């Protein structure tokens, strides 16, 4: 272990070895599950310490002098962990923390980092989840990268891989999301081609093969360490090309534009050493067991624990932490108990109660104050702190967090059980299940494989705290970076959570989750996590690809979600029906989604949250057929996009032509029908004043802001799309306006006179259509086809008032004409 004193003094400032950790997988499935455990993946426990600790240990061993953490959604937890851990006290200048709350991709994070302007040297980038466990020393990579630059000054990045055996598909470290085909030079290791797609055949151009002094080597599915040694230029490239959101896109772009930009990328292949980049749940489990089996030596529990103890004892001033750690689930990391390492890789942390008749086989970690009762059989498992394992329970290859109670005669295999879970008697849990925080599994329940049981909504109280506190603490990075996420769909749960106002968050905290007693038993609590939003994300690009090519971008984005939390590839929908038992895991969530919608018990919470999230909710009708959900979502997204476009146009005072071109461009992108398009335009025009940035500006009055926007742009938009001579579009304009007014009686409906008057005066609507439309409406009312609710009366009164005025005005006009 390098002594802390060496770390900051020996090197000159400009040669500091920097390592950047991006602490997010950017996988919606993983993040969804993570959100129910109240701990970010990088703080998940691995043998008593958070995953992140192992990475930091690795980096300190490698002589890294500066660690920059880029955290996205869980910046509060990560920050408070770092603040309270001994790291800050022992290595005060080592860790730097940059929250990137807005970031939706690796590219966004790096753009934020670029803004900070603190990187001016080569650095190691740990992407994936930023959690790499290795027993190699990484400082060597800097030399390798510098050698590459010496040979080829255009080299900007060196990607790091670890060779796997030839049967790597069965290798436990390989998960589908690491699929990769690399074409590189066998001698210089320069990267020539790079493909993450799963194809039947890959092609190498003959020109490349026949280049002199080039010997092509293929590298198929090496273990991706998720490590890249980068030159500072990489950040600028990420900033300049905002379509690079992942490393894959970046590398592809660089390789493709090699002749234009002249940048090259090299690769480095470790042939020995233990490497594991934990970025999905399968690898998380593997990391835990690998550490128990001491593959990662010297990074093994008892050594790390003893180091922590030393460091903690040397701290002179324990009252240092500024942020009070109120989260119990984080605080346990700060108390360090000695770990006893026994033969057969059995680890015992501090005081434990181990029954004489229990059978602890091998590779087992038992946390502080856990009770193992008689007849318990443990094998390759991690038991957290203060757990109680009931009699005759069998646990194999599983990870059990803290404060978990497991009853008698249970069988648990290959699963993750999070904090405060209660499992009653005679429960059987098959492989790759996750029981999230606070779940209770009832008696005699049998959980099939690949179940994710949750007991909370993803919107947790900590997130709200996160929003508020961090903003005060740290000045957020400048927001003028152009983000690729402006088009990010609001449908995904994680992002919608961000886009809703704080008010709606606080509402949804209070709502309780409906338990699915069929699944977890009568005395259980919890329901299966369904991936409605993410699945929709998944289905959309597939539909699009048939129509046009504009969606390449979307497809790239969806690649992020092409793998589930376990790292399995999610098969395209078409194949899903054909697949059978072996792909149960991928079918399950989908099937469950369908059944979920039918179940009335689950519906309310879903609808409620959807309603809260969407500002225009008439199109969101979850009880409608599943098939139309995509469609309506698409339309509402399109509408959001239109509103955003108009808002931007209004604020930046764009030219009329440009806006129209932009809107026209949106039409094919979202694949909306012409009528939908018109309707969306109308809605957008009248809902625009609700947008925060517009309403807040000068006046809070709806009518005033509507007038402002109308004056500037929107009336021209309407004129452009709803030609005054076209009966159909005029009527649909009026219908659209009508429905908006009915929905928002309060600010809009009561102003109908002003609105119609305005439109009439500015020649947006011709009076004859108004009259015609009103007549039809009246007829319907008379025939009782349209029922006027009491609260809508004011609207109809106003409408009548206007129409009457119009008729009078008309006759007056006529009169005047006659007189003239």
């Amino acid at each position, binding site marked *: 272990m390098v002594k802390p004193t060496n770390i900051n003094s020996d090197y000159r400032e400009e040669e500091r070895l920097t390592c950047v950790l991006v602490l997010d997988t950017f996988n919606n499935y993983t993040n969804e599950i993570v959100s129910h455990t109240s701990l970010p993946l990088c703080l998940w426990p691995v043998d008593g310490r958070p995953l992140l600790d192992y990475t930091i240990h690795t980096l300190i061993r490698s002589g890294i002098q500066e660690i920059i953490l880029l955290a996205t959604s869980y910046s509060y937890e990560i920050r408070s962990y770092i603040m309270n851990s001994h790291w800050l006290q022992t290595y005060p200048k080592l860790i730097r923390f940059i929250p990137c709350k807005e970031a939706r991709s690796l590219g966004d994070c790096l753009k934020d980092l670029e803004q900070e302007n603190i990187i001016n040297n080569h650095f190691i980038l740990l992407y994936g989840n930023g959690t790499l466990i290795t027993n190699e020393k990484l400082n060597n990579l800097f030399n390798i990268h510098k050698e590459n630059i010496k040979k080829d000054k255009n080299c900007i990045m060196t990607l790091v891989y670890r060779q*796997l055996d*030839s049967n790597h598909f069965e290798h436990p470290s390989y998960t589908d999301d690491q699929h990769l085909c690399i074409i590189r030079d066998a001698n210089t290791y320069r990267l020539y081609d790079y493909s993450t797609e799963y194809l039947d055949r890959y092609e190498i151009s003959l020109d490349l093969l026949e280049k002199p002094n080039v010997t092509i080597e293929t590298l198929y599915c090496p273990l991706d360490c998720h490590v890249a040694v980068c030159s500072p230029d990489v950040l600028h490239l990420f900033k300049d090309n905002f379509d690079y959101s992942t490393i894959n896109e970046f590398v592809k772009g660089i390789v493709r534009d090699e002749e234009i930009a002249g940048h090259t990328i090299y690769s480095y292949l470790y042939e020995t050493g233990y490497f594991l980049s934990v970025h999905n749940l399968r690898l998380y489990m593997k990391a835990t067991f690998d550490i128990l089996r001491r593959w990662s030596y010297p990074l093994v529990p008892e050594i790390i624990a003893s180091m922590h103890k030393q460091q903690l004892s040397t701290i002179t001033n324990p009252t240092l932490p500024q942020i009070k750690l109120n989260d119990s689930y984080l605080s346990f990391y700060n108390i360090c108990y000695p770990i006893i390492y026994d033969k057969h890789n059995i680890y015992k942390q501090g005081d434990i109660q181990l029954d004489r008749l229990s059978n602890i086989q091998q590779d087992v970690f038992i946390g502080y104050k856990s009770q193992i009762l008689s007849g318990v059989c443990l094998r390759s498992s991690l038991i957290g702190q203060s757990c109680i394992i009931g009699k005759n329970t069998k646990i194999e290859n599983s990870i059990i967090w803290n404060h978990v109670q497991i009853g008698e005669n249970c069988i648990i295999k290959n699963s993750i059980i999070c904090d405060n879970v209660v499992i009653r008697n005679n429960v059987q849990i098959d492989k790759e299940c996750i029981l999230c925080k606070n779940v209770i599994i009832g008696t005699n329940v049998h959980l099939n494989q690949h179940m994710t049981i949750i007991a909370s909504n993803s919107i947790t109280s900590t997130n709200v705290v996160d929003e508020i506190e961090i903003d005060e603490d740290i000045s957020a990075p400048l927001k003028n970076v152009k983000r690729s996420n402006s088009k990010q769909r609001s449908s995904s749960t994680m992002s919608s959570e961000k886009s809703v106002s704080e008010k709606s968050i606080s509402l949804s905290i209070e709502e309780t989750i409906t338990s699915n007693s069929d699944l977890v038993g009568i005395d259980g609590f919890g329901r299966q996590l369904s991936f409605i939003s993410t699945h929709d994300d998944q289905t959309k690009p597939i539909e699009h690809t048939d129509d046009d090519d504009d969606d390449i971008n979307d497809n790239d984005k969806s690649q992020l979600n092409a793998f589930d939390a376990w790292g399995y590839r999610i098969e395209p929908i078409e194949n899903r029906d054909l697949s059978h038992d072996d792909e149960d895991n991928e079918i399950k969530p989908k099937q469950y989604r369908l059944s979920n919608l039918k179940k009335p018990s689950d519906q309310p919470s879903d609808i409620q949250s959807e309603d809260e999230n969407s500002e225009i909710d008439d199109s969101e009708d979850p009880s409608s057929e599943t098939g139309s959900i995509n469609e309506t979502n698409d339309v509402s997204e399109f509408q959001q996009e239109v509103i955003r476009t108009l808002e931007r146009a209004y604020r930046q005072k764009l030219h009329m032509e440009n806006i129209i071109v932009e809107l026209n461009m949106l039409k094919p992108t979202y694949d909306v029908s012409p009528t939908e398009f018109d309707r969306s335009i109308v809605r957008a025009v009248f809902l625009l004043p609700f947008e925060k940035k517009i309403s807040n500006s000068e006046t809070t009055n709806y009518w005033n802001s509507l007038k402002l926007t109308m004056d500037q742009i929107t009336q021209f938009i309407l004129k452009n799309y709803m030609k005054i001579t076209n009966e159909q579009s005029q009527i649909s304009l009026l219908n659209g306006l009508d429905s908006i007014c009915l929905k928002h009686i309060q600010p809009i409906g009561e102003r109908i006179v002003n609105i119609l008057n305005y439109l009439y005066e500015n020649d947006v609507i011709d009076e004859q259509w108004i009259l015609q439309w009103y007549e039809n409406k009246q007829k319907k009312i008379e025939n009782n086809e349209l029922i006027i609710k009491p609260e809508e009366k004011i609207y109809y009164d106003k409408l009548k008032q206007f129409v009457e005025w119009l008729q009078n005005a008309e006759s007056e006009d006529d009169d005047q004409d006659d007189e003239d």
Partner: protein
Amino acid sequence: MKEFTVILYAGGNNRLSTDLSIPKALLPIGNRPLIWFSLEIIQSHPSLASSPLLILTSGQYRQILDDYLSTLNITYELIVYRQHHESTSDDQQQIQDELGTLDILRSCYSRIRTESICLISCDLFGKVNLTSLINMFRVRDASLSMLLIKTIIPSTTGKETIIQPGQKIKFTTEPEFYTVDQSTNRVTSIRLKADLDEYLPLRQNILAKYPRTIIRTDLVDAHLYLIKKSCLDIAIRSDYSSFRKEFLPKMIRQMAIDQPLEDLISTPANRTTMIRQQTTDLDDNADLSRLLEEYDCDNQEIRGGCYYSTDETQIFRVKHVLSYLEANRQASSLILSYTNEDITFKERLEQIQISSDCIIGDGHDIGKKTTIRRTIIGKNCRIEDKCKIINCVLLDNVHVKEGVTLQNSIICSRSTIGSKCEIQNSIICSNQQIEGNSKLNGETISAINHESEVYMVYDDEQ
């Protein structure tokens, strides 16, 4: 039971000397016929030396080859194959109609009694280290081991640029792409450039099995194969005519993706005969263990080992003028290494300068004030006074008259060079008379003079 049957392919036309009496196999290199070198390669490894040797040749050369081989102390069996589908007189047609290796092999297939076969062609020249190849064949229980050699432009002359004698003919060697697994030396695919458009495809299922492979473009086939009979069975029964160009790439592909080789037998009829053949074998053959091994070969993963030589003595195939010249230059040292017999010219004659790297055959008559350097001279050559011969190959019975300067040229047998000629970078075919005072540079003089035939390019296709 012997392990191998050695099949030496000694066919091929000699287009160097226009009289067709000398087959390619007997083309002299360092005054020894080409086949001598191939036989030395075979003799260099004990397990091949003791194996039955089948020499394939065409009818017209049978006698002359037999005459030569009988002088050597070896046991062999000459097998005559039909050279063409139809004996056509039209030379142009012949090239198209020539039989492929597999066609030829079919004619002698019944003679093969061993489990493995060594296929070798007689134009392989150089010190081949067969031990490692055979060891690999045995250790990996390979279906096929092949020798790959580096494509090198033969040169021992160092910085001197080599000028190809004779008419300028461009030898376009067709690149081949060998995908090899470096750790195991396994060949995972062979692609001929001619079969590809713009891209070299890599199949995912092969990549999955062999994730780290190198695509070598700097290797060529040496036409030396060790092959299991079970594989050759399939080759023989398939419809393919060429072993190297058609069957081999397909066989390697099938092996790499674990598909049965039987798929290569195209017609179902053939396949059933194949199966019948196997069952009848069972009845005939009492030696069950050997039979099981044969079955093993068919069913288990069949491996094709790959080995490429980086020996200091260069290995190449004598197939065009440049390689022929190069072979001649290396002949003396190679012969020395095989037989410990120094054939370089040792006699010191008065008023004649002959450098020590020359080989001069018996019955020479060399005039005074002649300088000879780096030259191979055949039997019964007569060189008159004041000649200057540098870097040349003279075959038998050449008469060089007074005051002739020869440089970087090949003079074929029974030719006469008139006095005071200056000949550079040229090929003089056999039975040619060059008049005195001629000056030739980069020309080919042959009986059928203006024909643009590709000289010395032997049929690659064997």
